[in-house]
């Protein structure tokens, strides 16, 4: 049994560590979701992203989402979200979900990222060549 990983970090995310934390011999499916820094927004080039979090609220909320996945899909969930500067192509969040069967795994993975975007107090600033802007999440 490996312990659940629920973290914020200002360093590059160790994807293998997130993946290993959901290992279970009873699981037939594991999905890794990566949210990745994208180089454009509505036609405007983005050169980097900057994230900040209300850590004392964000980590417990991430843990609640993991609890919900465990209860609803009999799965395991681990996730790490970045803070600070995230380069284009780098993951800003990695979510690993394991479940006994694949259908539940796709549902749980989608649920986790959607709920994270709605509920976890994290903010993203897009950095452009000539400025920057805070970007709110669109409804799923």
């Amino acid at each position, binding site marked *: 049994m490996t312990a659940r990983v629920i973290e914020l970090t200002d360093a590059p995310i160790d994807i293998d560590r997130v993946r290993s934390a959901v290992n279970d011999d009873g699981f037939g499916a594991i999905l890794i979701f990566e*949210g990745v820094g994208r180089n454009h927004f509505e036609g405007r080039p983005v050169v980097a992203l900057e*994230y*900040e*979090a*209300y850590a*004392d*609220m*964000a980590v*417990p909320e991430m843990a609640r989402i993991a609890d919900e996945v465990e209860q609803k899909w009999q799965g395991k969930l681990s996730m790490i*979200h970045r803070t600070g500067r995230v380069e284009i192509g780098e993951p*800003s*969040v990695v979510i690993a979900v394991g479940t006994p069967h694949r259908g539940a795994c796709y549902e749980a993975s989608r649920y986790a*990222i959607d709920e*994270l*975007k*709605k*509920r*976890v*107090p*994290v*903010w*993203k*600033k897009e950095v452009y060549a000539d400025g920057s802007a*805070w*970007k*709110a*999440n669109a409804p799923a």
Partner: protein
Amino acid sequence: MAIKVLYFAKLRELRGRSEEELQIEPGTTLQQLYQQLFPPGPEGAIPVAYTRNRRVSQGAEAIEDGDEISFLPPLGGG
């Protein structure tokens, strides 16, 4: 009474700091404190969720001595 206020994202930039201790009048609500700290500009107020001691709370809730307060602008995680 003394409280601690945390600022994030756009509000941190507007306030020029990430947290501070403030003295406020007893009975002040979350919404009243927000309006005092961030009077609406020409584009109106930034919509926020209110938190008191790390829980999302109603704007009409009264702040108590020693509370940790924050105002969460629209989220952008993921």
